[in-house]
């Protein structure tokens, strides 16, 4: 709030700056620390003797001869089969984003252009669906999926993630479509377009910012999901997040905990890059539902 009349005191300025710095440290330091530690050996990053080893790289020097080592990465990606997990994540994410955008734009467009009562009730139902804990849905899926013998494979998980994602996508895109003036498609209809043609050729071209935002959120959901992927995929098809958890379970192996550390860094880095590029869209998406609706 930079109001012309508003002169803030120096004390307040100092307090404000300190607060922001402390908060940023709290928010970012864990990631920086993990990134740093992922290039060390386990005895350094999880040091019983002295945590200072993590900085001086005492054991890393002893074991590998250098201050930094990429052993954890190369082992996790090859021996730990993290390459397979990341390939699966790419497949799942790609299809979830594409399909949920396709379904979501159609549905949200219809909702935003309908004046009937049922559109309101559908949105309320979507809100209730949004509130369902994913694990309760998974407990509903498992048994039928075993019976139909579609458990464990990627397509099932993709469809499930698309469906779980729909309520949020609908709400988000609904609030974006509401901002596109009705006159735009009404004039197209008068000119003889069908609703689908108006949607395809008139509305979609001006909807790209909204579609990108919705796409980003679908991507984050599919990329970050643990509950669904851990329980609906078999070992072979595990995506990155359940894979990281599986490294934790086998603590006996000396290297494995460091595999988890390097896998966490490998999985987080692309996400951070993405958010860095699309920060504006992420924020507009988070606020669209709140401020406008």
């Amino acid at each position, binding site marked *: 709030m930079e109001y012309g009349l508003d002169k803030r005191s120096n004390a307040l300025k100092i307090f404000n700056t300190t607060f922001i710095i402390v908060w940023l440290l709290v928010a970012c330091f864990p990631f920086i620390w993990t990134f740093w530690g992922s290039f060390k050996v386990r005895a350094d990053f999880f040091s019983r003797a002295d945590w200072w080893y993590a900085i001086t790289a005492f054991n890393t020097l002893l074991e590998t001869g250098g201050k930094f080592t990429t052993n954890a990465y190369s082992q996790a990606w090859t021996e730990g089969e993290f390459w397979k997990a990341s390939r699966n994540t790419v497949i799942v994410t790609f299809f979830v984003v594409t399909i949920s955008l*396709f379904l979501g734009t159609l549905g949200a467009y219809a909702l935003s252009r309908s004046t009937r009562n049922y559109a309101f009730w559908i949105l309320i139902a979507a809100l209730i669906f949004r509130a369902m804990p994913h694990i309760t849905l998974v*407990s509903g899926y498992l048994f039928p999926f075993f019976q139909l013998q579609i458990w464990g494979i990627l397509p099932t998980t993709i469809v499930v993630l698309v469906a779980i994602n729909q309520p949020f996508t609908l709400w988000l895109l609904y609030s974006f479509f509401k901002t596109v003036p009705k006159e735009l498609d009404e004039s197209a209809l008068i000119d003889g377009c069908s609703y689908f043609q108006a949607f395809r050729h008139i509305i979609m071209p001006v909807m790209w910012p909204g579609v990108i935002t919705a796409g980003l959120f679908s991507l984050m959901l599919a990329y970050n999901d643990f*509950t669904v992927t851990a329980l609906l995929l078999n070992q072979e098809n595990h995506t990155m997040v359940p894979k990281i958890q599986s490294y934790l379970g086998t603590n006996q192996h000396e290297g494995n905990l460091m595999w988890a550390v390097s896998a966490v860094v490998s999985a987080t880095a692309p996400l951070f890059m993405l958010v860095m590029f699309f920060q504006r869209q992420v924020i507009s998406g988070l606020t669209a539902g709140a401020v406008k609706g």
Partner: protein
Amino acid sequence: MPNKTFFWFFLPTGLAMILFIGLPIISTGIQSFYAQHDQVVKEVKKCDPFGCTVSIVVDQEKTSKIRDEKPLGKFNGFGTYIDRNHLAVDEIGKFWNETNSFGEFVDQVTNLPFYKALIFTLTYCLFVTPNVLLLGFIIALSLNAVTRRIRGPLIFGTILPMIVTPLVGSLVLFWMIDAEGIIGANLQMLMDDPYLSLKSSKTLTWITIIIYGIWHHSPFAFVVFYAALQTVPQEPVEAAIIDGASRWQRVRHIVLPHIYPVVTFVALISLMDNFRVFEPIIGFSAEGSAQSLSWLIYDNLVNEEVILFGSAAATSMMTIVGIAILLAPVLIRTWKEFRTAR
């Protein structure tokens, strides 16, 4: 838009939601009334030169036959709901009669798995949600006072805890807080207690998970509040400054009323998300001292011997009831608004 066009536009997404959100809830409901079959036992007579012995063994063939015929299990009615692992009706009755003081009774009840999980889940919601609102609001206010040019990177740093998945977020913190990590080791030195560790104390574990929850959710509250702050009208604020209102009075009487609807929105979303807390328990490997409702369901579903569908489903149904209770005030209000608007 005509009904018919609406139908075709909405069909794909509607179908996806009905098939994979609506039906699973019904499927969960049905499963909760069934329990897994008991194993069929048979007597085997084993004779050797010294005589015959009769032993009881599991009849694998018959057991698997029954399981194949009725994969859903045997009908159990509300049996699963009231058994020891859920509402524990009998046990509570017993405790009521046997314990001498009310405190002892509460103690016994809160040791039952379901109530233990319920209490953790509610405690988590109760502590995390208000703190998330508060911290998010303070961050939004103070970032809003920073020069516009450097806000971008600051916002990026702020939202990092939110965009990583809860499992990764809790792991990253856990590796620092653990006895072998940087914070944990230093705390041990500071307190001069070599046995101080996260896992050794239930209270510490709870506090850690709650702090994690605040760390993870505050950025969301921040983003929404920050956007709402941009829409606060300037004139009343300037008028208040001229009238000599203090900074706190301005926030209290102008900014807060303006963003009030957003506060309820954030509170609601945050409450819904906190109620399903589950991944941090795995990330912090805190199963020993902290269990949530969602974790109970997960635990039943990854059971090694036989998946406890019925038990998981019963907990799921009760979780859904919990969500419904949380949502009820909002739904009732929306419905009233909708009726008056018509």
